[in-house]
């Protein structure tokens, strides 16, 4: 029953977001160079990225912060697997999986109105989406790692959620400071815009190579930062 209610809310949220895009496009055939079908693909990617992070990363990291606060992270550290892996995927909130599915549906809805994609574009989309998710994951683990020093940082996840909301439009329409923030320190903008660009035929091989390189760098940095932060952890028994 709760699942059905959550799903219904989700359908409501996504359909009104699509409605918002339709209202904007009632006045223009293209927004910042994006056509309506391309924009729908972008909106779908937005919900896929948000859905994945709220399905697994956010619930896991929220619990992780609580473990740090209570000193119970010891039990995680004792297990014979990578602690970073374990805290990242330990808790799932399955109702948010629906967001991923509905996001994919919106992507499909947009794609059906675009000309058929070449296999290269499909591959580029898959790679870029994966890189986008890696970027978001790296950002979230860095934000969470700050808990080792500051302990109470639930608010940092709220910063992520506030900026994520801006991902519903292509990052290039925003004023300078917001665009730059969303493409650098908080790479939510490029994590969503670039995969959509791949489908919209707006991503060249240089752009694709760049996001792969950036995602790899972010991954390595997040890994290093996690280990660095872990050294500052003082648990209940340490």
């Amino acid at each position, binding site marked *: 029953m709760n699942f059905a209610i959550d799903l219904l809310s989700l359908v409501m949220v996504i359909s009104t977001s699509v409605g*918002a895009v339709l209202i904007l496009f009632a006045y223009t055939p293209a927004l910042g160079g994006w056509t309506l079908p391309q924009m729908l693909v972008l909106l779908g990617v937005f919900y896929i990225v948000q859905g994945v992070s709220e399905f697994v990363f956010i619930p896991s990291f929220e619990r992780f912060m609580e473990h740090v606060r209570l000193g119970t992270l010891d039990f995680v550290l004792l297990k014979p697997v990578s602690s970073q892996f374990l805290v990242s995927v330990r808790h799932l909130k399955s109702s948010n999986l629906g967001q991923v599915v509905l996001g994919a549906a919106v992507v499909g809805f947009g794609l059906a109105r675009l000309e058929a994609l070449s296999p290269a574009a499909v591959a580029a989309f898959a790679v870029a989406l994966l890189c986008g998710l890696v970027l978001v994951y790296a950002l979230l683990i860095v934000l969470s790692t700050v808990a080792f020093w500051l302990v109470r940082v639930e608010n940092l996840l709220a910063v992520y959620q506030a900026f994520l909301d801006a991902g519903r439009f292509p990052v290039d329409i925003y004023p300078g400071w917001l665009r730059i923030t969303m493409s650098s320190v908080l790479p939510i903008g490029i994590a969503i815009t670039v995969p959509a660009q791949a489908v919209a035929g707006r991503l060249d091989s240089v752009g694709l190579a760049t996001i792969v390189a950036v995602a790899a760098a972010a991954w390595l940095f997040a890994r290093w930062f996690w280990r660095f932060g872990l050294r500052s952890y003082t648990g209940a028994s340490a």
Partner: protein
Amino acid sequence: MIRAYRALLIAGFQHAAQYRVSLFLYVFFSLLRPIIFLAAWAAVVAARGGSVGSFGVPDFAAYYIGVTIVLHLSTSWNAYEFEFQIRQGRLSPLLLRPLHPIHYAVVENIVWKVFTAGALIPAIVAIALTFSARFPAEPWHYLLFVPSLLLAAALRFVFGWVVSSSAFWITRMSALNTFSERIGFIFAGQIAPLALLPGPLQAIAYALPYAYMLGVPVDILRGATTLEQSLVLMGGQALWLAAAYAVLQVVWRAGLRQYSAVGA
């Protein structure tokens, strides 16, 4: 009653002072949403080369600054807390106190408003300068804006309580809240100024209560209405407020009879 309010206000400010960071983030949150849609409309204006209807970028800037101000001053999130209180049975101790629970909510809201205004104002000025916002309002617009804002805030508050009161029957009413909020997202004037809602959507918007909580006071503030229009719209606000209040009386009484803390 005045003494009770004084005590509650003092306690409220002490409580709020503990949450300075959350407060800063809240201000940031409440600004980002309007900026997102302002940027989107600026892109539409750029694509059309000049304006959308009677709106240029400075008009959209004025509109979304108005949205931020009205949203900020009229927000109350007691609905969320109310579900929590019902679900956890926390309403029981509140009902034992001599004051109606709504008074605690009123005080909480006043405290937040005063606390956050200090951070909001500089941010709004920055947006106004970036997009060179244009307010063609006459002095009487500002004069009418005050009662219009109060009506909007009261309507939003009472309407929120009506929706929340469904928690007496449905313990998962946050879904209903989402539902109401998303209808408001379209029809209150967040996505687009009311004047730009296409075709029948505009008529629906003026028939539903949501526009009277947001779009109407914003249009008065930015000077987009004539005197007659302003008065008619404010009449609409008053009507909806009276209707919502009447419904709340009925629902609240019926709900209280229904209430039993979950697990009790």
